[in-house]
């Protein structure tokens, strides 16, 4: 027993030391979730992120001469573990990638004090687009309100929405509720009827009640804000209740190949908006294959690598990489600090040329960020499941940001008020 105590004491002391190890290269921790109820969707994303960074390290020796120390800290999508990971890594990290709306909400107020940028590509909190208020938070290249707006635009492209009925099937969780204010205001503007149908975390696998409700409501469209096991559950139920799949559209997190493979042919026509697309012919894929997969350093497999989520992981790392590169060029140093990375992330200019320079042809739409625009509003493509894989079925859609700029500003200032004193960056213009 005493020996055990001594061992435990030694372990505790050791753990206290661990938080303060010295940085080697650019430390960009990722709060991954390869375990837990959302692991199914997490794993391909994490693999994509890790493989891209590993590829940069192997091919170019990191970014701008500095190696990237890309480390995962497993959270299992639990907020508690996420905060632990954040505390553990914040000492030397130049960026935080919180990976869940819950963890983002917890970490968001702390970053103002710790001054570390949060990079939450395509998730997090939509008002984060307001860079004046959320100085340290980024949800590049598009937020949930962009997604909702683009989906409604796409539906509208098939005919007027006046008098139509749209069911908004969402996870009963901060993530799923976030687009509601925008959907409500769109419903008012376009004259469609919005029926929100929540899916509880425990009902993700068994959504028969929700789909019975949908059957009773007889909606023209179903817009799905799903994640994890909810997607597979919803898609199988949709097939079962014979809902016309071409009228079912999801957010980008609801467009996971593995979820659709469960229903295969029956899922034909299902759509998902996305700001990333798997292009097997893009040079970056060949480089990853050459430098990472063939070297045996990838945890991924071929099937997964051809999927939407793996390529999204690549794009996420590419955005971070671009932020780092921009900062390095501006400050003329390889070893940038968190403050400099923030400048870098605020000044990304992903033009078509830059995208093909990075070898990401056709995988991400062009966008640019600024001090006041922390999202970039890249727009996205509507992808459709053809029975085997997702294909692009639309040109680039762009969100009509002006329409809800006011909503962003008011939500952002509401957040700042609730968390007063909240420092606001007054130096931003426009």
């Amino acid at each position, binding site marked *: 027993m005493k020996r055990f105590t001594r061992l435990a004491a030694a372990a505790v002391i050791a753990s206290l030391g661990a938080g303060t190890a010295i940085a080697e290269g650019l430390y960009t921790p990722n709060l991954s979730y390869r375990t837990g*109820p959302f692991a*199914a969707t997490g794993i391909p994303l994490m693999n994509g992120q890790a493989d891209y960074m590993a590829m940069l390290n192997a091919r170019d020796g990191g970014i701008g001469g500095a190696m990237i120390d890309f480390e995962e800290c497993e959270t299992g999508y639990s907020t508690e573990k996420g905060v632990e990971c954040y505390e553990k890594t914040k000492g030397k990290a130049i960026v935080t990638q919180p990976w869940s709306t819950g963890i983002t909400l917890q970490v968001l107020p702390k970053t103002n004090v710790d001054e570390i940028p949060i990079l939450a590509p395509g998730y997090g909190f939509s008002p984060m687009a307001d860079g004046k208020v959320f100085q340290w938070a980024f949800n590049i290249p598009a937020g949930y309100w962009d997604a909702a707006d683009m989906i409604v635009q796409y539906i509208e492209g098939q005919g007027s929405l006046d008098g139509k009925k749209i069911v908004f099937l969402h996870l009963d969780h901060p993530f799923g509720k976030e687009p509601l204010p925008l959907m409500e205001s769109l419903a008012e503007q376009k004259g469609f009827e919005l029926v929100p149908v929540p*899916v509880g*975390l425990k009902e993700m*696998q068994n959504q028969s009640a929700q789909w*019975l409700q949908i059957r*009773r409501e007889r909606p023209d469209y179903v817009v799905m804000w799903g994640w994890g096991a909810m997607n*597979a559950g919803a898609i199988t139920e949709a097939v079962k209740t014979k809902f016309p799949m071409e009228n079912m559209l999801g957010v980008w997190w609801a467009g996971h190949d*593995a*979820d659709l493979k469960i229903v295969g042919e029956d899922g034909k026509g299902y759509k998902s908006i996305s700001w990333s697309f798997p292009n097997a012919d893009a040079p970056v894929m060949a480089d990853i294959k050459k430098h990472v997969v063939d070297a045996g350093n990838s945890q991924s497999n071929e099937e997964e690598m051809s999927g939407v989520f793996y390529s999204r992981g690549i794009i996420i790392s590419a955005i971070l990489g671009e932020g780092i590169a921009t900062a390095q060029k501006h400050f003329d140093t390889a070893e940038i600090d968190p403050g400099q990375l923030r400048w870098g992330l605020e000044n990304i200019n992903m033009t078509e040329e830059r995208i093909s320079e990075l070898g990401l042809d056709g995988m991400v739409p062009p966008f640019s960020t600024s001090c006041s625009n922390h999202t970039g509003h890249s727009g996205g493509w509507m992808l459709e499941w053809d029975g085997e894989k997702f294909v692009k079925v639309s040109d680039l859609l762009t969100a009509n940001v002006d329409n809800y700029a006011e909503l962003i500003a008011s939500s952002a200032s509401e957040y700042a008020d609730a968390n007063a004193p909240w420092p606001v960056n007054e130096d931003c213009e426009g």
Partner: protein
Amino acid sequence: MLNDIFVAPFVDMFAAPDFLMQVLWEGLVSGILYALIALGFVLIYRSSRIFNFAQGIMVVFAALTLVGLHAMGVPAWICILLTLGVMFVLAVVVERVVLRPLVGQPDIILFMATIGITLFLIGLGEIIFGGENKVMITAELGIPTGSVLLEPFGGLLILEQKDITAVIVAALLVVGLLIFLNKTRMGRAIRALGDDHQAALSVGISLQTIWVLVWFIAGIIALVTGIAWGARAGVSFALEVIAYKALPVLMLGGLESITGAIVGGLMIGMLEKLFEIYWGQPLLGGNTETWFAFVLALIVLLFRPQGLFGERIIERV
């Protein structure tokens, strides 16, 4: 308000009887699956007074093993046999490592131990099989897919063939189990052990054998549940939460009663669906299924503290 609670839902029901039938059918299918999980609980509780929380993870584990083996190229029917083997080994290990040293401890300690088993199996399962959502090998097992369309009252009733299969298999399993418990030596020994440990031991019933047997049967039930449930929405660790749905079934039906588990499961499956569709969604913002079963069971317990079919609790001072 009163109209919304007492009149409108019933008007809805009669206005669209085909829809009502669909609701009841969906409730029946979920109810059967709840009942199956509850059966696993009841069997173990009856023979060892252990409230086995690990039943939920056993469902996941069995389904994952089955799918995992098939992914390695083993034919489907052999997979089933091998999975049964794995569940048997699991039963032996649980009995040897966990239960035997804990014989005679208070109920709550044994209950905690099964939560320990749950955590262990989650970790082990994720290491072996990974956390990805997997497709149940429905077609390979010869389970028909597709659906039967009926048109009662000029409406539409969709019956999934795999749901029909699940209902039939579950019914067969229950009948088989009842025959086993009532007609065979082993089955009677299980019941004897449930009635009185000391007395059963003194007439030569081996506690160890019976416990292994009971955990193994619970494993078989877990496999059947896993196949049926996995065919609906894929196999992943998120399935584990269905264990919670079995708890109110146990409360309602009584912890010791097999009949209770079945009747309770069907009742809860159908009532929670009815409540959700006709009251929960229009009046309460939906998602009432998370708690409705518990509250219903709680109310029933206030009148019958041992559940509908449970053994009467007799206390002596």
